[in-house]
């Protein structure tokens, strides 16, 4: 099968499924600023994806994946975005937990957890940030101790997407109190639905709740549910950040193109494109998208380190796309003009308003852009640490 035949297969599958009675309601749902929508339907969609073999495309075949090359994975994400398919509820399992287990997990852990991720039947959330440990993640204070063959977890996590639907939490906790900061952390796999775990949604800037606080009060998990060695959690937790993002970063460019086109259509529709300032900003947004595409393809699409970005290519791309997307949101609202000041009943917002508001999160989550700049300065440019 050629790449283009594969693309046609993906496209055909998505078109057929999104036209079906069960999933027709889902097109365009659950995306930027809309992760609260149609959650039950999107969970069913995740199981459909799994049943038809669209989860774990890049995993080795022996581990339940399809062993597809990088390019095919990108094609899947591109077509997914082009079809306006719904926001995923299984991406943390597929893109963070599974790659981590494939690298650091025991055969037993892989056998236990990968099938549920691949089938879309077990959903994951990620427990890294804490109220006192955001950018300074190594300062986290959630503790876990091994007693009677179980880890006992106490503490609090925050900004936990999808915790309210997740079955499992991929949790970074301190397991050795006397060790300094980065040492003494472990990556635990903790069941979410148990008496010791309490989840509270965080209402955010958009009025909706996509993130949660998660409280652990003597929550338990089996002694074997630690990814990598106990005490090696820092390396395990951060080792996979960025590794799998390349594929989705390339795929999301198609979604950005769609968003740009809707801004352009709005500007034509209400005549604001006749304003030279708006027209110039539209040209800049389009130019920026081409530049983002070329750069993403170049620095993430090749194995060799980029001559400028060096080992910080993923950080360069994160700085670029988040800034571009934020500016697009600002432009989108200015194109709409005064009507952008109005909200619907019960604070129901338009897609434009959600883009405008939610994009403020993007320069903060996944490592704030200030932290990204630190990494580019250090790993990309080799500047000395203070």
């Amino acid at each position, binding site marked *: 099968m050629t790449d283009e035949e594969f693309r046609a297969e993906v496209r055909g599958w998505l078109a057929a499924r999104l036209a079906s009675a069960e999933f027709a309601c889902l097109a365009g749902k659950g995306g930027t600023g809309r992760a609260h929508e149609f959650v039950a339907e999107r969970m069913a969609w995740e199981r459909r994806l799994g049943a038809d073999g669209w989860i774990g495309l890049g995993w080795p075949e022996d581990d339940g994946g399809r062993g597809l090359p990088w390019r095919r994975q990108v094609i899947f994400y591109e077509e997914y975005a082009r079809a306006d398919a719904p926001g995923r509820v299984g991406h943390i399992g597929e893109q963070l937990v599974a790659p981590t287990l494939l690298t650091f997990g025991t055969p037993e852990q892989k056998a236990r957890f990968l099938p549920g991720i691949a089938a879309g039947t077990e959903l994951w959330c990620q427990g890294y940030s804490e109220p006192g440990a955001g950018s300074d993640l190594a300062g986290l204070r959630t503790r876990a101790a091994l007693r009677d063959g179980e880890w006992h977890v106490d503490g609090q996590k925050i900004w936990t997407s999808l915790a309210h639907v997740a079955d499992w939490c991929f949790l970074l906790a301190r397991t050795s109190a006397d060790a300094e900061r980065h040492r003494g952390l472990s990556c635990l796999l903790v069941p979410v639905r148990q008496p010791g775990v309490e989840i509270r949604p965080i209402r955010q800037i958009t009025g909706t709740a996509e993130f949660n606080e998660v409280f652990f009060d003597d929550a338990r998990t089996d002694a074997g549910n630690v990814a990598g060695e106990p005490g090696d959690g820092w390396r395990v937790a951060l080792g996979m950040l960025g590794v799998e993002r390349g594929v989705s970063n390339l795929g999301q460019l198609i979604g950005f193109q769609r968003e740009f086109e809707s801004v352009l259509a709005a500007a034509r529709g209400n005549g604001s494109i006749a304003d030279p300032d708006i027209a110039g900003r539209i040209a800049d947004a389009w130019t920026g998208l081409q530049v983002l595409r070329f*750069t993403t393809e170049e620095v993430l699409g090749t194995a060799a380190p980029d001559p400028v970005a060096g080992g910080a290519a993923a950080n360069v791309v994160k700085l670029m796309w988040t800034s571009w997307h934020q500016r697009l949101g600002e432009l989108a609202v200015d194109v709409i003009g005064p009507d952008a000041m109005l909200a619907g009943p019960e604070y129901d917002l338009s897609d434009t308003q959600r883009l405008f508001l939610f994009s403020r999160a993007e320069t903060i989550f996944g490592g704030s852009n200030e932290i990204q700049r*630190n990494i580019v300065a250090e790993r990309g*440019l080799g500047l000395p640490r203070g």
Partner: protein
Amino acid sequence: MDTPEQAALREAVRDFCRKQSGPGAWDRLTGELGLTGLAVPECYGGSGAGLAEVAVAVEETGRVLLPAPYLSTALAGAVLGEDGGEPAGGAAAGFLPGIASGALRAAFVFGDSVQVTDGRLAGVARHVLDGAEAGLFVVRAGEALFAVRAADAVVTPAGTLDETRSQATVEFHGAPCARVGCPAGRAEDLLRVLLAVESAGAAAHCLDVTVGYLKTRVQFGRPIGTFQALRHRCADLAVEVTSARSTAYAAVRAAVSSSTGSPASAVSAAAAELAVLGPLAKRHCADVFWHAAAEMIQLHGGIGFTWEHEAHRYLKRAKTSQLLHGTPAELRRLVSQRAGLS
């Protein structure tokens, strides 16, 4: 992204640029290295490589602001070389061997002021890049391109803000000319692509030198590269410089795919892409270069403001590259129009 041959070429040009100085540089660049003949067909004494290889050489010579009319001359080799075996008025056959050997230096004249009547050119063009030392002008008149000997024009060299490359005012008073097959619009977009590549190379140099300085300059008892205010500015610049290089080479790929040697099925799509990416890449890369040069001066402090330090030459080159062949504002409108965004 380089092929093995391109990587070897890059290393050779970089090595040459490290050592070059003085009046013998052009002879080595053209003779020993054969850089002006990279896109000239072999039958005219070139190496028959192409625009991708010219781009590699332009990026590396741009990095050091090589004071030679390389960009214009190498591009003339590519543009005339596209006429290939066709006699086409004999322009290719007449000029390509000189371009390949380095005996003939070229410059491009775009703009709207030159007219062709009965096979003769008339008009005046200012700001002709590399015009002062050119022996050949490739001139736009209407939508067509013509080759004219400098001996048939009146050339007045201009003093320039950027002393590393020349400009001239060129007058044609009924100058005899030969038709060149390449459309004028394509030639100007190719020139923009090469200016983009050159700017990306020079911007990378500004960043490299600045980062090097920040590692060694000590204030308050430590290298100033440990201060976050400066580190973050360098990180932002690294993002821009990375993006400039990627964008410039995307434009180079469109230039290569739309040249006459490429598969016919791909040429027209690539030509449309070049029409957008030429101005887009030139604007983006020159803007990045400008920012990199400005940061180079600021982050070097007082030393960056001196005549001895190289920073001012980069700042002047950057501004010149922004203003040549479409200002940022003009190119923004051009991209908007060509990409159908209005």
